[in-house]
C-alpha cells in the first residue's frame, strides 16, 4: 500500500524517501521505588533499545500490552521525558543536535493526541481557549486570530463552533472531548501526530466515527500518524506498518498486513490468538502463552519473552535476539526465525518460509 504523499509541505526537507521520524536505539530506565541510597540500583527498563522509522504520509501502528513501554516511547519522542540514550531524527534533523532541530521546533511539527480521560482537557478553560492555547503561547498569535483558528479546527473535527466554542470540558461527551483533543493537537499545524490510545476509552460506535475523522484528516492535512494502541483490531485497520512491543523491546516489525496474516514472533501470535477472527486462512501452530508475566524490574536475561514462550530453549536465555529481516519489510526478534542461531526450530522454520 503505497502512500499518496504530495510534496506540498514547505517544511519538508528530504522528500518522500526520507523517513519523517527515525528512532535509533531509544532507551529509558526508571529507578524502582526505594531508589535513594539503595546499594543495588533497581531499574525499570521501560524502553530498552527501540528503533523504528515512520515514512511520510503513512501510519505506523505500535501495539503491545500495558507496561510494554509504548506510552513511554511516545513521551520520549516529544521529550516530555528525557531519553537516557538513543537518537531521534525528524526529517533528517537530529533532535537536540546543535546542527539539527531543537526540542521546541520539534514540538511545532510533532504533536500528541492523548487518551480521553477526565484530565486530558483543562477543566477551567473553554473549548476555544484550550485549542487556542498552543498557538497563543507558543507561536505568539494574538487572541482574535487564535480563536478564529480554533473555530476553523472545531469545524474540521466535526463540532459546530457556534455550539461548542464556549463550552467547558465537563459538558462534552467522550467522543466530543476526543475531537477537541484532536483539534488541540492540530492547532500547531504539526506534520506528525502521535495518537496514544486515542480511541481506547470510547464506545465502539464513537470509536468508528473518530477513526474515520482521523483518516479524513490525514488525507486533507497531509499528516503522518504514529498510532499507539493495545487493541489489535483497530491497529490493523489504521496502520500501514506495525511494530509489536514487549517489555520495552520491539519483537516484530513490518508491513501491517504481512504481520497480521503471517505473524512470526510467538508473542505476536499469542496476541492474535486472543483476537476473535473469522479468517479461515489464519492457521497457526503457536501454543498459547505459558508461565507468569515477568517482573519489569528484573526482566529475564536474553529474550525477554522466553519465560512465557512454549518454544524457549537454552540459547534464548543466553543471547537476546536481534531484530532480523526475514522477508520484505518484515523483521522479527526471535531465534527461531534465524537459521544458525542455535535454536532447534530455526532450520525448520526457515525451510517453511522459503
Amino acid at each position: 500500500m503505497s502512500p499518496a504523499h504530495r510534496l506540498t509541505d514547505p517544511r519538508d526537507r528530504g522528500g518522500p524517501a526520507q523517513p519523517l521520524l527515525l528512532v535509533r536505539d531509544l532507551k529509558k530506565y526508571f529507578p524502582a521505588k526505594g531508589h535513594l541510597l539503595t546499594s543495588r540500583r533497581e531499574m525499570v527498563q521501560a524502553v530498552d533499545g527501540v528503533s523504528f522509522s515512520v515514512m511520510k504520509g503513512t501510519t505506523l501502528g505500535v501495539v503491545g500490552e500495558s507496561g510494554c513501554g509504548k506510552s513511554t516511547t511516545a513521551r520520549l519522542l516529544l521529550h516530555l521525558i528525557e531519553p537516557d540514550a538513543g537518537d531521534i531524527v525528524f526529517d533528517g534533523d537530529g533532535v537536540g543536535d546543535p546542527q539539527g532541530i531543537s526540542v521546541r521546533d520539534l514540538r511545532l511539527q510533532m504533536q500528541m493526541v492523548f487518551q480521553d480521560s477526565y484530565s486530558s482537557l483543562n477543566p477551567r478553560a473553554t473549548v476555544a481557549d484550550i485549542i487556542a492555547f498552543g498557538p497563543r503561547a507558543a507561536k505568539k498569535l494574538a487572541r482574535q486570530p487564535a480563536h478564529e483558528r480554533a473555530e476553523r479546527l472545531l469545524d474540521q473535527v466535526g463540532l459546530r463552533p457556534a455550539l461548542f466554542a464556549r463550552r467547558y470540558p465537563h459538558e462534552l461527551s467522550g467522543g466530543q472531548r476526543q475531537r477537541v483533543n484532536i483539534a488541540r493537537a492540530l492547532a500547531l499545524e504539526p506534520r506528525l501526530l502521535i495518537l496514544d490510545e486515542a480511541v481506547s476509552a470510547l464506545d465502539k460506535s464513537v470509536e468508528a466515527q473518530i477513526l474515520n475523522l482521523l483518516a479524513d484528516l490525514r488525507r486533507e492535512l497531509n499528516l503522518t500518524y504514529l498510532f499507539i494502541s493495545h487493541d489489535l483490531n483497530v491497529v490493523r485497520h489504521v496502520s500501514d506498518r506495525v511494530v509489536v512491543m514487549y517489555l520495552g523491546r520491539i519483537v516484530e516489525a513490518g508491513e501491517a498486513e504481512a504481520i497480521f496474516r503471517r505473524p512470526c514472533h510467538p508473542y505476536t501470535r499469542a496476541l492474535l490468538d486472543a483476537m476473535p477472527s473469522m479468517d479461515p486462512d489464519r492457521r497457526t501452530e503457536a501454543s498459547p502463552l505459558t508461565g507468569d508475566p515477568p517482573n519489569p524490574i528484573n526482566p529475564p536475561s536474553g529474550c525477554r519473552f522466553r519465560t512465557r514462550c512454549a518454544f524457549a530453549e537454552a540459547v534464548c536465555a543466553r543471547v537476546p535476539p536481534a531484530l532480523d529481516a526475514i522477508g520484505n519489510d518484515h523483521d522479527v526478534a526471535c531465534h527461531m526465525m534465524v537459521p544458525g542461531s542455535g535454536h532447534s526450530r530455526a532450520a525448520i522454520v526457515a525451510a517453511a518460509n522459503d
Partner: protein
Amino acid sequence: MVELAAAPHSLALDEPLGAEPRSYWSTVADRLKRDRLTIGVAIVLLLIIALAVFAPWAATHDPLQGSVLRRLKPVGTPGYLLGTDETGRDIWSRLVHGGRLSLVCGITPVLLATMIGGTLGLVAGIGSRFVNMLVMRVVDVFYAFPSVLLAIAICGVIGAGIGNTILSLTIVFTAPITRVTESLATQVKGRDFVEAARASAAPLPAIILRQVLPNVLGGMLVYATSLVSISIILSAGLSFLGLGVTPPNPEWGLMLNALRQAIFVNPLVAALPGVAILITSLCFNLLSDGLRSAMDIKLPA
C-alpha cells in the same frame, strides 16, 4: 488505511450537554447560593466588615475618650450600649473601631502570605527537582516552629506595632501556604492537559499562569480563608501579650488584656472583646468550610 463504514464524522448530532455554557466557578457559585449556612455566615461577615469600615458612623462615642467617673459600667447602661471599660471609654465604640484594626491585622498578612507563598509554591511545584528541594527545605525550617512561637519571637525582637505585627504574621503564614500550594501544583502537574501544554512548546510562565494556576486557585482560596480565622486569633493574641498593636488603640486583643482586671468587677464586660474575636474567627472558618464543600464537585466522567 482501511475506511470503516460508519456514520460520517461531521454529523452534528453531537450536542453538548446542558443548555448554556457553565464554567466551574459559576457551578460553584450556584452551589454556594443553595448553602444557607454559608450564606448566613457571609452576611454576618459582611456586617462585621461594614461596621468596621463605617466605624466612625457606627460608633456612639469617641473610642479614645474616657472618664474616670464612668469606669466599668455594665452592659445596658443608657447611652453606653455595652458598658464602659476600665478608663470609662464606651465599649461598643471601641469594639467597632477595634474591628478595623483586628480585621486588618487578620486579613492583610494572609493576603500577603498568599501572594508570596502562592508564587513560591507554584514555582516549587512546577519547577525542577532541585528548585523544589531548595524551596521546600527552607519552608520546612520555618514550619519547624509552632506558629505562636514564631510570631511571638519575631514580634518580640522587632517590636510591637501594627506594621510589625503584619510583617511577623506574614512570615509565619508564608510557609504553610507554600506547602499547600506546592502540593496542589504537583497534583495538577501530573494531569494530562498540563503535559499537553508542555508538549505544545509553550513557555513555562504561560503554562503556570493559564493551565496550572486556575486549577490551584480553588484550593488556595479555601486554605487562605481558614488561615484568616487563625490570623485574627493570633494577632489579637499578640496584642494581648503587648506585642501587637499598642495602646491606646482599640484592638480586640488589647482590650481583652486591659479588661482582665475587670473580671472581678464586671465580668460580662470583660468577656465582650473575646466574643467579637470568636464570632469573626468562627465565621471565617465556616466560610472556608462552605467554600470547600461547594468546590468539591464530582464532575461527570
